[in-house]
């Protein structure tokens, strides 16, 4: 019998071109959104609408990173929701502190 010491028994599988293609496509989308944000920063007037657009685009990018790169979409539903649902609390934190900041502004200036 052949000695298998320190020799891997793992079978190397061939490259999955379809998967790799999808990865590069996602990378392209992320890059495109960043470029759009860049252009918006210099062309559109500053204000609440622009800031809201930036945040929407950023959350959109975050979705791609979490679903495609971190494969959260491939996990079972209970795990998916146990990660996503707690993030709803952050929406409240955002609203509460944005209001707080505006009120401080009113008091101070």
């Amino acid at each position: 019998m052949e000695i298998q010491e320190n020799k891997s028994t793992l079978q190397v599988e061939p490259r999955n071109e379809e998967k790799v293609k999808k990865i590069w496509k996602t990378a392209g989308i992320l890059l495109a959104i960043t470029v759009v944000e860049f252009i918006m920063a210099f062309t559109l007037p500053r204000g609440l609408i622009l800031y809201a657009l930036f945040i929407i685009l950023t959350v959109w990018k975050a979705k791609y990173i979490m679903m495609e790169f971190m494969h959260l979409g491939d996990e079972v539903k209970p795990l998916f929701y146990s990660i996503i649902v707690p993030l709803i609390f952050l929406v409240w934190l955002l609203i509460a502190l944005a209001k707080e900041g505006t009120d401080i502004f009113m008091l101070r200036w």
Partner: protein
Amino acid sequence: MSAHSTAIGVSSKRGVWGGGNEPLKASYGKLMMWFFLLSDIFTFTAFLITYLAIRVSYPAYAGSLDSFTGSNEYWPVPELVFEAVPFLHGIHAPLIFVGIMTFVLISSSVTMVLAVEAGHRNDRGDVVKWMLWTMLGGITFLSCQAWEWNHFIHGTEGGSVLTYINSIGQNVTETVFGANLVVNEYGPPAFAQLFFFITGFHGFHVTIGVVLLFLAFYQAAVGVYDKRGHYEMIEKIGLYWHFVDLVWVFVFTLFYLI
């Protein structure tokens, strides 16, 4: 990964309480990484929302962009603060450098996901190759950030004339260059404090990430994962690395765009 000897899949090697079972069909390590990342998401979001709240509590700069000077009376316009690029001294290049940094970090995330894909195929050569690229991306990003901090701390040639209360409680009016935790030439003290704290905390995460990447790179190269029978460690470190990228996407938006 684990031997599915029972209905809930308990590894014979590690047992139920040794992390041997796989609730939610994810291994112990991956599950814990996800929950750690969830807690880290809360930490970073708290910081970033604090930044937003303090920002809106100051007046925004209302004058024309050409005549912008830093003042502790109003919040600065980011594209006029972060406008320097290494080797191009004195050239106004708003957000170009930070754009390059973002590109580097997103690219390293792509090479990381390619390493994870190679890990699924047990392809040691590909894993090692992509881990090396990812590590280089991380190191490049950190170097860029070091330059950015250096420039931010030392400031512009002209500086700004500010009236402020210095660290020993005196009210002074003088030209301020660069930034420290008491005063900075760009905007209110909180601007530099938050910049140092949030990008610093993110940079710390990247540094830890590079160390983890190196360990995984080394272990993959010497064949530890082949002997172990799976490349799950690459996946777990990949999760962490993508998270670092994820946070940067938000830091980029809040600090440099808004």
